[in-house]
Structures are given as C-alpha cells and as structure tokens.
C-alpha cells in the first residue's frame, strides 16, 4: 500500500493514448439564495475510449451534477468554479457557445432517465431522429435514410412505422431505444447514461441493458454511467467511482470495488443491500447512521467523518490521503484507515419471527378465494384480477412481484376494499368473511388491515404536524381520544424510532426515510394484523431502505404482524418474504416458498423476471429474455395468457388451453403446461429432493 499525491493530476488512465474524458479537480457550486454552495468538491477521474465508467452513490452525492457538468449542462444556478473537463483533449469548460453547440452535436451524447419525457411529445419520432442527423450537416433525404438505419441498429424491427408515430404511442423500452439511437447518431466520443433504465420494468430494463452492451462493442465511445442500482453498474461498467458529498471516495474496477470495498462508505452502501440471498431472520441490513450533509456544508477534512464507524480524531483534523490500493493501478480510497476496514462491525443478527402457517384447524389471518376484479371501460370488461387464491399466516410475509400492469396494486386495493373485488369471491380475516368494500367493513376489520404506500408525500397530509396525523389515525382506528390518544402517539413514535422532536414537524420538513416511517407508524396506529406494503422503499436510497426494511422486520417480530409486500425488487423480496406470488395479467402464475421460487425450477415468467436482474454480486445467470410487451388485460391472449411472450411455449397447447394453478411441490404451485421436472431440466436446476435444502 502506498500513499500517492494525486494533486491536480487525478487518476490517470492505464490505457495508452489520450483519455476520451478527463475530469480534473472539478468544483461546482449551486447558488441558493445568493450563497454559493459546494456540490462537487474536487472530482477527478478519466475514462478511456471504449471504457465504461460508473458513478454510484446515494441521491444528493453529486453524480448527476458530475455528468451534467461534463456536458456543461448545469442548472441556471450551477457554476463550475474551478477544474476542467476535457473530452478528446479539448476543455469543455472553456468553450464558446458556438463551440459548445458543435461539441454537443458531434462529440458527446446523453441518454436520460424517463424516456417518455425526453422526447418532444408534439413531434413525430421520425422528425426527432432525423434532426439528430441534419444537425450534423446531412441533407434531409440522407438524414432520413440514416435515421432509419439508426433505428434498425437499436433493434427496432419496423423503423418506418416507428418513425411515423408520436413518442406517447411507443412503450417505455421502445422510447429508450429511440433516445439511444439519437444519442449514437454522431458516433460520440463520450456517451453519458443517466439512470437509463430507472422506471422501466425489470424485463424491459434487461432488454435496454443488453442493447447498451452490444452497442458498446460497436463503438469506441467512452461511457459515463450513473445508476443507483449497483447491479447495473457492475454488469456494465469496467470501473466505478463511489461518490459521497461531492467527492469520489473510492475508485477502481467494478468487480474489485463491489467485492472488497476499501472505504467505509462503500462498505456501508454495499452492506445495506440485501445480498447473497440473506434473509431477515439471519441478519439485519447495515444502515448508515445520520444523513448526507446538505450541499454547501462545511466539510474541511473527510467528507464522511460524521457517519463513519471508523472515525477518530485524525479523521476530524486531517484531510484523508488518496491511498492507492493493490491490484489495479487506478484503484484508490480516500481514507485514513484503509487498513482497518475489516474492523467495521458486521450488521446485527436478524430478528426471530414466528410464522404460524395456516392449516386445517388454524385459519390464516387473511384468506382470498376466487377473488377477481373487473373494471369497466367504455362498456368493455377489463379483467384486472382473475380468480386469485391466497392465504397468509400470522407473522408471515407474502411478496407479490410482477411487471407493471400485472395487477399487483389492484390486488392490494381489493384486499383493502379500496376497489371492491367482484361478487363471487371470498375475502376472510381470521376465518371470518368480510365485505368486499371498505365502506361496508366494521371498524375492527379496517383496523386489522392497513396499508403503506409507495409515496409518503402524497399519503400524508402536508399541512398537518406528524403528531396530528398520527393522533387522527389513533382516534379513527381505535376510538381513543384526547390525552390518551396523544400518549398512544408518543408510544407509537418511540416504537418506530421517531423522536418527540419529529412529532411537531410537518411532513415536508422530514427526509424521505422519516416520512415513510411516519406512514408506517400511521398504519400501525391501530395494531393491525396485516399491513399491505406497496413498494414502500422504491423511492428511497439503499441505506434508508435498509433502515425501513429492518424496522418492518422488527415490528413483525414484536407484533406478529403479517405483511403483503408488493415490490419489483427481487433482492428486497428475497430478504423479507417467506413466500412469493408471481402475478402476470392479473393471474397468479407461481406461488411458493421464497427459497424454492429463487432456486427453481420456475414458471417461465418467473424465470424471465429472475434472469432480468443484474446482480451486484456478479453472479452469472442463464438469460431468458421476453419479447414484446404485456398485452392489454382488456384483450388477454388465448390459452395461457403468457404464451405470446413465453420462450418455452408449446404451440398447439399453450395457445389454446389455459393451464390451472397446480401444486408441483409442497406449498409451491404453478400455472404451466410444462411438467415440473421438465422445467427443471430446461432450466438446469436439479429437482429438489425432500432432504435438500
């Protein structure tokens, strides 16, 4: 281990020749209320031609600012105060407006989050793609030809038809392909990908990432990629920089950084992710205490010192050196205590949770039988849920997964009675049937079944204090009023690790994690038996997510609450759920114990969902990719609803007869014509024997 002076040079690329992107000691401020506040504090890195460099870190750490500064597209109040950004040897920070325009047209491109917004909604796709070529000086007919070619290159099968459409007529995956096609129009030297798959479904995300992988081999553009999903970065980027409070605190080859992190922040970030199939009862997730410093905070020494488990006096008085690490010449960590990384305490062991599985003489806390939900749309029946059968034991967590449009949220709303299920089904709490609609349910039934929503911002009354929000729920759910209610609110808050100070704040004064804590406290106000959680952590950073997941596990351990946990994050569901139900087009395709669902053999749809996730652990998976989009529930395909997208569909069977949900192993059911052992053979999974784990 050597300590090197990085000075102004920054990390030099090992690759011969000039780097395609060279960011050197970049300092950026945002002017907020007349004061310049530091956002980037001396960011340096280089990306060689053909190399992909990832930036990771939680929101607010400066990764997007770095990317936008590299293309000099900062917000109005943003300003580069010092440092340089060189692309192909030319300093972007010193360019005139005309040169900058030329630079953006010919040398740099960007692909953004949310492709639906990234295209002009009022212009045809063709016009927008053609424009990317006319700006390079091509004549209109040439540009049109090149545009068609570009769309073919991003694997759009019918480019003429796509050119003629408007952006809103395309699916999310298709929109992102078009944006990528525009970005590649000029054969850029630098391609910036800013969360290119966030908000897309897992299977679509996998398609887009595959496309990026293939295209990377065809160009020698340097790729700068931002993603909060570490798995994506690992699967796509050669090297990665971990950012915290406007500084790169650790850098190196992706696999090395993710497998043996050498900065306390990286360690915390990685340990807060549910990984390696660990479950809540085995180990709790690591959290990073405290919160990210605000932009412009005064951080004279180590930026991470206030939250670091290794921090000592040296860390508070001396700027940490850039410590070069063994292995890659570009690997470094900015830490005084790289040699003590192993001393960071492991997360605590998990909490014991007793699950009372439903049995013949012990009814489940929640039972759904023949639950369907049909919406009416212009005299057209849209079946959003079809014949759902579920039961939930006390203290059990049932994960519900599926792509958007699969009916996950409809199922949650039907359970709660927000959208009453169709007549004919039975919904029972503790063995007693309850009415389908909330308005007809008794106060006790309402209290027993509560919900936590994805977005606490819209779930909490923003003009009320936390105390008032919780007191209202206590009164509404339990009938307790006045001082007694207030006492209950304080007990509840303490239980949820909210301090009394938080009680007198309004939601907007709280961070995202605290807001979600209040939303959970609200659901727990009346001692619910079942809490339905609809993507409760998908808007949160991973370390905050870890705290919320730990909290949910603790509450479950103490209160023996059952959860229905809706998520698209397979890592989270594996950590938290005892059983998993996979939904497609409103039908349960597979349901079974978590381990069996993850180990397989699986329903082909589950197989596709599982193989779509890029893992931060870098595990290789057999890939199956789904073609096309989820069909409209108003017009479901014949036979098995999954057959048009199923890579294993058997013509003549799957397209004519809908398979039944059949128990293939104890507690594990599937809706597939292919026999279980045949699926195991196809998927290369040995069949579980009764003695196997």
């Amino acid at each position, binding site marked *: 281990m050597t300590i090197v002076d990085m000075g102004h040079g920054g990390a030099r690329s090992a690759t011969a020749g000039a780097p395609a992107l060279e960011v050197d000691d970049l300092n950026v401020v945002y002017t907020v209320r007349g004061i310049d506040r530091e956002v980037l504090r001396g960011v340096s890195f280089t990306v060689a031609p053909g190399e992909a460099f990832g930036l990771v870190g939680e929101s607010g750490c400066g990764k997007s600012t770095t990317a936008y500064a590299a293309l000099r597209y900062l917000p109005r109040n943003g300003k580069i105060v010092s440092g340089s950004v060189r692309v192909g040897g030319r300093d972007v920070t010193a360019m005139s407006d005309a040169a900058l325009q*030329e630079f953006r047209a010919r040398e740099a491109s960007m692909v953004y989050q949310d492709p639906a917004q990234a295209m*002009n909604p009022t212009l045809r796709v063709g016009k927008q793609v053609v424009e990317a070529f006319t700006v390079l000086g091509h004549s209109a007919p040439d540009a049109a030809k090149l545009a068609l070619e570009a769309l073919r290159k991003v694997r759009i099968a019918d480019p003429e038809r796509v050119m003629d459409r408007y952006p809103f007529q395309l699916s999310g995956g298709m929109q992102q392909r078009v*944006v990528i096609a525009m970005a590649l129009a000029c054969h850029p030297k630098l391609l910036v990908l800013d969360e290119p798959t966030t908000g897309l479904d897992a299977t679509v995300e996998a398609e887009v990432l595959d496309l990026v992988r293939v295209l990377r081999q065809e160009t020698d553009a340097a790729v700068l990629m931002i993603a909060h999903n570490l798995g994506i970065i690992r699967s796509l980027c050669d090297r990665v920089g971990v950012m915290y409070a406007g500084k790169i605190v650790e850098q190196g080859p992706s696999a090395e950084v993710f497998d043996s992190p050498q900065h306390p922040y990286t360690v915390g970030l990685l340990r807060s992710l549910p990984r390696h199939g660990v479950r809540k009862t085995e180990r709790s997730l690591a959290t990073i205490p405290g919160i990210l410093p605000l932009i412009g905070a005064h951080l004279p020494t180590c930026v991470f010192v206030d939250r670091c488990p290794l921090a000592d006096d040296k860390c508070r008085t001396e700027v940490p050196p850039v410590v070069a690490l063994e292995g890659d010449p570009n690997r470094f960590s900015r830490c005084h205590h790289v040699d003590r990384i192993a001393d960071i305490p492991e997360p605590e062991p998990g909490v014991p949770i007793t699950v009372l599985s439903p049995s013949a003489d012990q009814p489940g806390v929640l039972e759904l039988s023949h639950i369907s939900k049909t919406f009416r749309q212009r005299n057209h029946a849209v079946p959003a849920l079809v014949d759902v059968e579920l039961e939930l034991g006390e203290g059990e967590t049932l994960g519900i997964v599926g792509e958007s449009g699969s009916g996950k949220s409809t199922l949650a709303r039907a359970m709660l009675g927000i959208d009453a299920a169709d007549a004919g089904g039975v919904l029972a709490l503790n063995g007693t049937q309850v009415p389908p609609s909330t308005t007809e349910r008794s106060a006790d039934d309402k209290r027993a079944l509560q919900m936590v929503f994805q977005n606490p911002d819209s779930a909490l009354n923003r003009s009320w204090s936390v105390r008032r929000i919780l007191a209202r729920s206590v009164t509404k759910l339990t009938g307790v009023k006045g001082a007694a209610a207030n006492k209950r609110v304080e007990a509840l808050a303490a239980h949820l690790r909210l301090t009394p100070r938080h009680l007198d704040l309004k939601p907007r004064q709280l961070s995202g994690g605290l807001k979600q804590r209040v939303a959970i406290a609200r659901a727990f106000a009346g001692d619910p038996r079942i809490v339905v959680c609809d993507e409760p952590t998908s808007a949160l950073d991973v370390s905050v997510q870890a705290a919320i997941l730990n909290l949910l596990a603790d509450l479950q351990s103490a209160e023996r609450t059952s959860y229905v946990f809706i998520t698209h994050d397979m890592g989270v569901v594996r950590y938290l759920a005892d059983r998993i139900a996979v939904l497609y087009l409103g039908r349960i395709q597979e349901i079974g114990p978590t381990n069996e669902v993850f180990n397989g053999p699986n329903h082909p749809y589950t197989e596709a969902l599982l193989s779509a996730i890029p893992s931060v652990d870098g595990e290789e998976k057999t890939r199956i990719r789904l073609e096309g989009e989820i069909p409209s529930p108003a017009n479901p395909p014949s036979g098995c609803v999954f057959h048009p997208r199923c890579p294993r569909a058997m013509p003549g069977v799957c397209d004519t007869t809908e398979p039944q949900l059949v128990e293939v192993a104890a507690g594990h059911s599937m809706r597939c014509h292919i026999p279980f052992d045949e699926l195991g053979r196809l998927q290369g999974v040995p069949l579980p024997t009764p003695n196997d784990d």
Partner: protein
Amino acid sequence: MLVTLWLLATIVFLLVSVLPGNVGRKVLGPFAPEAEVQRYNQAIGTDRPLLQQYFTSIRRAFTLDFGKSYGTREDVRDMVLDALGRSGKLALLAFVLTIPISIVAGIIAARRQDKITDRVIVNAGLASSSIPEFVTASVLLSIFAVQLGWGKAFANPPDNAGPIEQLQYLVLPATAMAIAYFGYIARMTRAGVITALHADYTRTATMKGLSKRQVMVRHVLRNALAPTITVISVQIGYLFGGIIGVEKVFNYAGLGSLMLGAVGAHDVPVLQGAVMLVGMIYMVSTLLADLLIAYLNPRIRLGATK
C-alpha cells in the same frame, strides 16, 4: 354546442323577462294613452303568456331571426350584424397589435428569466392588465387625440372612408384594448415557455447540438403556447362584447354600445340578438382554440390511449 346555445338563449330570456317595467310604456313614453300601449304590446307579443314568449324567443335564437327592434323598428339581425362588423374591425386591429407583441415579450421574458428585462416585462404586463381599459382609453384619448391631435376622438369613421382612413379612426381605441390584453397574454406565454424550457425534451434538443433558436422554434414554442391559445380564445368573446368602456369613451357604435343602449331602452330583441351573437362568437373561438391545441398536441388529437 346546441345545448350551450339553448342554455344561453334561456338565460337571456330569463334575464330580460325579469327586467322591470312594461315594454310598451317604456317605448312609447309616459304620456302615450293606455290603449296605444296595449296595442303596442299586443303587436310585439309582450302581452302573451311567459311560456309562449319563451318558445318564441328560443325559436328566434335558433333561426337567428330576432324580429324588429322595439325602438327603431329596424330588423334586429341587420342592426346586430352591422355592429358586429364594426366591433370586428376594432377587435381585429386590437389583436393584430397585441398578439405578436405580447407573445414575443413573453418569450423574451422567459429566456431572460429573473433578469432585468424579465422584471420589466412582467411588471409592465401586470400594470397593463390591472388598469381598466376605459381608463387607458380616456388617457390615450386626452393625450393623443385632444392634446396632440394625432388620432380621432370619435372612432366612427365616415361611411365612405377608405381602409387607411378607417385605421386612423380605430387606432386609438384598438391600442387601448391591446394594452389591456398585453399583460394576460405576455404572462401566459412566459409561464408556458419557462415550463417548456425546463422540460426534458428541451434538454434532449439542446444536447443534440441544436442552436438556441432552433430549440426555441422547433421544440419549446409548440409545447409552450397551448395555455396562451386558450387565454386568447377566451378573450376573443370578451373583446367583441366586453370592451363596452372603450366603445363608450370613443363613442363607437359597436356591439358593446348596442347592448348598452338596448338595456337602457328595454329593447329586448336587440339585446337578445346581440347577446346571442357574442355568445356564439365565444363558442366558435373556444372551438377554434381547442382545434388548434389539438393540432399542436397529437396526444389530444389521437387520443391518449397509452
């Protein structure tokens, strides 16, 4: 649309039938013999039961035949259309003056957001739309027509006036109206452009390497102008019928003056005709605005199914 028209006709009927007073007495004056008054009421039908009058009035509204004026015995349709022609000229001129200027001002303000230019435009707009138009009209009249003698104090051009001469008569009242609308339109445009400038697609266009001008013309404006168009269309009806103050100040015989006179004279057919016409202009301009917005926004045109 027909339902709206029917509702409008009904409301107009209800309003005029609650106007106090005997129509015949009002028209013929306090000294006319009672028998005369009764004969007059019989002739124009105001002695018939209310329901019957209502049906007559609805039929008239839909056939655009409002009968004859109580006062002058002229055909109401001719009177109203004449007035409409004059109001139309004035409104058109006001539009030609105000729309380009206020849209351009709005765009400039948006591009220079929070800078001095923006502040000046926003505040000028605020001032212009908060001063009542008859005040602006009076000020313009006294400064330009009376003191400087540049324009005409009476807006009614002589019957044989050519286009240029007519313009000279109309320019002052049109300016007063234009000033009243400048603020609305400029501020609406500014807000629309600022929203579009911050949109992701604008970022995409900039990153493509388009010039600022290309970004503005091809990507920003088309998305930014929808709210402005809505505001303008709502103002059209108002501009035709509502600028009574300006017409009064310049003594212009447009729709506003006609309506004002008809209310005073209890001249129900004229009032009915004028109000129905203004209502129709209102409907047509709103319809045109919706069509224009649909043309600019394919999502509306093609139905947002996705």
